[in-house]
């Protein structure tokens, strides 16, 4: 894998946070993923791009242990995903995150605090450290002033920031985001990408983003993995754009 110069400053190439080897997955007789192998280093910012039905969300669900692959292996922090116990190391903003029940009775602070629950065992109680981590996460996404508002009363962009804060509240090492920019305005998108850059560069978080936004990824992510049931490109962003250029303008 070649790497851009920006990536060199923050990526720890010796540590693989995610290792996927020869993963295939089928829904009934339909093969959704075929022989996918991929690794993500600590500090990386990987964009997984692909069209509708290309298997992006399925791949993320397999990495997170929500679905079992038909074959292949997945390791998180060097451990098999089924045996992986330190779930707090993972932050997750699902595709459905902003598609929740708007009348659910929870304040922004109550929702963000849920991100701390993975740090406790089943009988663990919320303590002062949880409250201050919740506050830090809300401040990081610039949402502390909205802490007492009901989550359903916020705008789409604010809800998205609250869900990112929930993912950050557990102080994870890697954050997965599944198409969080679908259906949001350009300005909200810009703020969102700025926030991801800040998380990746300032907090040294590994970021794995699923997106349709292929063009934008040239300015944002360090690596791009193109998925269409199988992985057909997994390189640095510069290489990706050089090759797309060749594909689109073969005579130039």
């Amino acid at each position, binding site marked *: 894998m070649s790497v851009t110069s920006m990536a060199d400053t923050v990526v720890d190439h010796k540590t693989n946070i995610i290792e996927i080897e020869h993963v295939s997955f089928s829904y009934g007789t339909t093969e959704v993923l075929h022989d996918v192998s991929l690794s993500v280093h600590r500090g990386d910012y990987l964009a997984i791009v692909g069209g509708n039905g290309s298997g992006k969300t399925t791949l993320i669900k397999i990495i997170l242990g929500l679905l079992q692959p038909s074959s292949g292996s997945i390791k998180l922090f060097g451990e098999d995903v089924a045996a992986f116990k330190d779930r707090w190391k993972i932050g*997750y903003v699902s595709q459905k995150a902003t598609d929740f029940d708007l009348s*659910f009775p929870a304040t922004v602070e109550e929702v963000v605090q849920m991100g701390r629950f993975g740090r406790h065992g089943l009988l663990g109680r919320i303590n002062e450290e949880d409250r201050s981590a919740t506050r830090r996460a809300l401040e990081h996404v610039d949402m502390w002033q909205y802490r007492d508002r009901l989550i359903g009363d916020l705008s789409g962009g604010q809800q998205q920031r609250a869900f990112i804060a929930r993912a950050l509240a557990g102080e994870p090492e890697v954050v997965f985001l599944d198409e969080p920019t679908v259906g949001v305005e350009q300005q909200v998108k810009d703020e969102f990408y700025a926030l991801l850059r800040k998380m990746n560069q300032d907090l040294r978080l590994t970021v794995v983003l699923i997106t349709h936004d292929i063009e934008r990824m040239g300015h944002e992510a360090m690596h791009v993995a193109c998925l269409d049931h199988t992985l057909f490109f997994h390189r640095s962003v510069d290489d990706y754009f050089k090759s797309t250029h060749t594909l689109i303008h073969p005579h130039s």
Partner: protein
Amino acid sequence: MFDLFTYGFVVRGMEAGVIVALIAPLIGIFLVLRRYSLIADTLAHASLAGVALGFLLNINPIISALGVTVASSLGIERLRNTKHVYGESALALFLSGSLALATILLSLGKGFNSNLFNYLFGSIVTVTQADVYMILALAVIVAVAIACFYKELVYISFDEESARVSGIPVNRINMLLIVLSAFTIALAIPIIGVLLIAALIVIPVVTALQLRGSFTQTLLWAEIISVTSVLTGIVVSFYFDLSTGGTIVALMLAICLAIFSLKSRA
């Protein structure tokens, strides 16, 4: 006014009523938010088969109702997880099946009598001191279990997938919630009756949700509405010689409607 407290059965009814009123919203808030409201009604019908079994075998109907309701709750969850039938069809199967079983057991045990009405619609007259202790014991189990798994239940109710990613054993917590619902229904039978239990579990929560507060505030409002309706319902039913369960539920609905209309005017 306070001469009613000189009657032992009223005091016992009040004690049992307050316990039931405190426990019902604790379960209700999670059932309503998870769109599981109908489970309460289904388990209530299953509990009638339990009551009928108690009549037939001459054991305390709360105990037999507890057994049958817990067994049904496990059966429903299992049937839903197999995905052989749609979720609500599983409920319909158990609801009608247990009602059929109840009528057969009642006819076998010659149980179609006035005592049955007390269990169908609730009555404070029939609550014995032993019932109060049993209701208290069941209530303590439910309250402790909810307190222990409160944060997990809240997280799963809001976002099941993220709860799973964070390592919460979602299936086991779901099962626990349904078994605790069975406990709550069994303990509420003597006061509110089989046919009206679901109302006690659902209406205070639905009403509290209209007030648009935080999760904690919503739970608190549901508790206040529940306890107020149960205590007022017992007093009103005593003085006007009305069905206790019916009066309590009518009061709850009145509060619910009042809040609805205040909200629509605001």
